[in-house]
């Protein structure tokens, strides 16, 4: 085993630590930074519960060595909350549409969705399904999750457009979602 001095920017804060060579980024986030929104599901890259945004791209944090992440910028579910602690439109949409049951896959699912919507603000249902194909949900099933991401996309787009009919800013009428 070797020890490695790393500096990783997590949700905007630089976290420096000395980590053993076999420590994964997932372990670094949960055990050293103590960010437990990142879930430890299978720890071998199959389930996607540990998904974070790594240098702008959604990845499985259990498949990256912490030492490899030196100098990287990482965003977790904790980064999505607003300045007043308000939830992100993707989180609201998941709650409203019942896209959450046990909740274990939810942070990973939402981080994948967040990276998708950054790159493709109005994805089709098929594109949403393809993007979350590496995130497993064993209770809710995927229909509501896909619908929630679709709804979040519409709301984020109208927020950006300054559309007064957006529900989140409290003005105008509720956006209907079929």
């Amino acid at each position: 085993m070797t020890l490695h001095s790393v500096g990783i920017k997590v949700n905007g804060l630089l976290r420096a630590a000395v980590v053993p060579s076999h420590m994964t980024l997932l372990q670094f986030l949960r055990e050293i930074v103590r960010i437990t929104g990142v879930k430890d599901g299978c720890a071998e890259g199959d389930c996607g519960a540990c998904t974070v945004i790594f240098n702008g791209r959604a990845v499985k944090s259990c498949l990256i060595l912490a030492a490899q992440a030196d100098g990287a910028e990482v965003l977790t579910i904790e980064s999505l909350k607003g300045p007043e602690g308000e939830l992100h439109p993707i989180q609201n949409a998941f709650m409203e549409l019942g896209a959450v049951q046990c909740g274990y896959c939810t942070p990973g699912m939402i981080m994948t969705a967040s990276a998708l919507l950054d790159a493709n603000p109005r994805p089709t249902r098929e594109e949403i399904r393809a993007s979350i194909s590496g995130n497993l949900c064993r209770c809710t099933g995927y229909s509501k999750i896909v619908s929630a991401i679709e709804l979040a996309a519409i709301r984020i787009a109208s927020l950006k457009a300054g559309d007064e009919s957006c529900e989140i800013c409290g003005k105008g009428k509720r956006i209907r979602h079929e």
Partner: protein
Amino acid sequence: MTEFDLLIARDLRHLLESLAERPDSRIVAGATDFIPLVGAGKWEPRLAIDITRLQELHFIRQTAGWLCIGSLTTHGEAAESPCINDMATALAEACASVADPLIRGRATLGGNLCTASPAADSVPAMLALGAELRLVSLAGERRLPLEEFLIGPGKTALLPGEALAEICLPVSPGHVGSGFLKLGRRRAMAISVANAAAWVSIDGGMISDIRLALGSLAPTVVRCPKAEVSLRGRRVIDIEAEVRAAADGDWLGVVRHDISPIDDVRASGAYRRRVAAPLAQRMVTTALERAKVNI
């Protein structure tokens, strides 16, 4: 996870010097195979050398007659690259079908080659496209056709101290086309039960050249030399007529002589033998259609 020493290589020179000093080491890049396999105790490296900082191995570039892809290129980058989609369609399709989007953003083409799984998806595509590999070491460099690189499950022709630097695909000027298809249990995170890639060149309505490669059907990904011989020189309309009539051309019987599938957790050898020919036929047809569009 089993403990190992880790060295973060600063540049290619640092990597090659470290490899020469420590022949017991294993290179780690995307780590998408490394972490699960070390975790399961299947790989027990004394020293792992991380190469993710080696920007000199991270490129896609076109030079006279070749499309060259650095070994650190990820499957996601290859799947999205316009020039790979255009000139090496089979490889773009193969890369888009590996694992899932999250893993494709990390897993590298060099890693897929060096792990040398018989079920790898990018490898049949590269084989059908006629890939040559550039291998580097402190002693210098050599080029090796991909066929000679693949030796057995998990075994490659890499010598101690050597690293895979780039994958070179010949770019043919004529009417060429290629395609890749995999058969798996689901669309994401499925290891191929069988897969196929074909590349064809058409001249005067005839198949002037063809390369057909199959995966998960032999100890390594394999070319199908017998089927290729029986297809070379055939008229394109005859092959198309066979497909329309749902007839098995004689060349399809030959495909079965080019493979030696086994039973495993994903499928029986008998099933694999059955699906090999339709997969091969579909990919030859797809490649022919694309070659005709490119006329």
